[in-house]
């Protein structure tokens, strides 16, 4: 169960997208999010769709994983679609139903916005589906490195993130253990009125916090004893390499952006 919750996001496969430099992927996603706002007619949305589908095919990720990523926001997409249909009053009326008028502009706008949403979710979930959390952390650290000049603690943030990632399964295991221990003492986590159930979380959280602090202290001691003294003079075991593949995909995005800019109405 634990594996599914934490690492179920990452789907290992041997694809061009998986092999991309995490820095390139992060930049690609960020720029894609910006570019998509250029699209405003059928042709430009078509191009964005082609680009997105292209990425999905390249990534070799089975569609059901992408569908799982879309599921939680599905309601939101439907909701925005309906909102636009009801409240955007542009163009001709195509449907009349008492006080309810549906305009052509509303339908178009609704469809576009929901498509934009869908593409955004698809591409960002592609990032997490094809990149391990630790690679994402490494990529972020490298990309944010220039900000160190302004005394931003980039190395520390990256380390914090990687340690949190490493401790998620450990803490889950611990939660499970404490839950069982408290259940054995008669705490009921699953039934009863909401108020009681919220209350029953307290005997779960308190021991969890206490032990986390103890862990943190021991971890700090262990790190210090292994020679950790901040980011200064530290080398990195994980090396990132930017290849032709990364250049090509970035180029593809630039082409998309230029086309969108030329073809938008």
């Amino acid at each position: 169960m634990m594996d599914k919750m934490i690492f179920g996001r990452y789907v290992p496969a041997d694809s061009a997208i998986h092999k991309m430099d995490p820095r390139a992927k992060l930049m690609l996603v960020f720029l894609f999010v910006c570019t998509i706002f250029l699209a405003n007619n059928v042709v430009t949305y078509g191009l964005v769709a082609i680009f997105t589908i292209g990425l999905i095919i390249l990534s070799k990720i089975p569609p059901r994983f992408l569908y799982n990523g879309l599921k939680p926001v599905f309601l939101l997409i439907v909701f925005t679609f309906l909102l636009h249909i009801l409240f955007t009053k542009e163009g001709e009326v195509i449907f009349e139903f008492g006080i309810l008028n549906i305009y052509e502009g509303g339908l178009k706008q609704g469809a576009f916005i929901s498509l934009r949403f869908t593409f955004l979710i698809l591409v960002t979930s592609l990032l997490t589906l094809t990149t391990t959390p630790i690679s994402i952390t490494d990529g972020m650290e490298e990309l944010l490195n220039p900000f160190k000049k302004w005394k931003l603690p980039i190395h520390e943030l990256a380390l914090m993130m990687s340690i949190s990632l490493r401790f998620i399964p450990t803490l889950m295991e611990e939660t499970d253990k404490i839950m069982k221990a408290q259940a054995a003492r008669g705490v009921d986590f699953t039934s009863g009125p909401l108020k009681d159930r919220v209350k029953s979380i307290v005997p779960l959280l308190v021991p969890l916090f206490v032990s986390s602090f103890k862990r943190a202290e021991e971890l700090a001691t262990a790190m210090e004893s292994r020679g950790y003294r901040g980011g200064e003079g530290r080398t990195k075991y994980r090396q990132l390499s930017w290849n032709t593949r990364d250049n090509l995909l970035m180029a593809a995005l630039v082409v998309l952006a230029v086309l969108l800019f030329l073809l938008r109405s």
Partner: protein
Amino acid sequence: MGKKLVSLDHVVFNYEGSDSHAINDVSFDIYEGEWLAIVGHNGSGKSTLAKLLNGLHFASSGVITINGSELTQATVWEARRKIGMVFQNPDNQFVGTTVEDDVAFGLENNGIQQDIMAERVKRALMKVKMDAFLDQEPHHLSGGQKQRVAIAGVLALQPDIIILDEATSMLDPRGREEVLETVRELKEENVLTVVSITHDLEEAAKADRIIVMNKGQVHREGSPIEIFRLEDELIELGLDIPFSVKLSKALQKTGLDLKNDHLTEEELVKELCELHSKM
């Protein structure tokens, strides 16, 4: 005995806000290539001693010398590179997200080049027989395996001394055996000095020399055989002698003609068999 690696000279240490000395006038030496066990009841000061050796605490008075240079704030990082430590809780010392990342952590801290790092990580993991688990995440490993990775993390830095601070106390018997076996092999292979801090006298029985701590002071010092002869004295200190030693002594009391002191079960079984064949 080899050359003196570490020496403690009248070391005293108080925890902040405490009147009593956690370590009270302790002096002893650690020699190259030996396996020294420091045993004692809870609160006897044995773990504090380990932290002093690693510069995690500094002595209130007295001098700790490591490889000829005094341990101070200025030399502490060098000392930590020479003295590696494995702690009690396997989870709380695993820093990396995977086995190889964790072994590399100490190397990264010391600014080792990436290509040298990759090679050292592999070699260290091979020594503890964990090289097949290179890209595994810690929650897929057993306690014993995690401790072996921690040992590899220490080995990768090529230290002179490895301190095991109750490193086996949270493990199941199999994990404990795995870890001790690894340490024993390492000690035989190269000149690695082992200091194991423990309250488990079965573990201490494998050492060359034992120091018994009590109330922050060195109570006794000697070979395992010498120490286990103290029987009642050890029990008074809250320690228990190994089962094989106990059995051997009990058999002697019933009038069985056993000649030696037995540190391990095998030794005892062997002599009993020999005795039986003579009857």
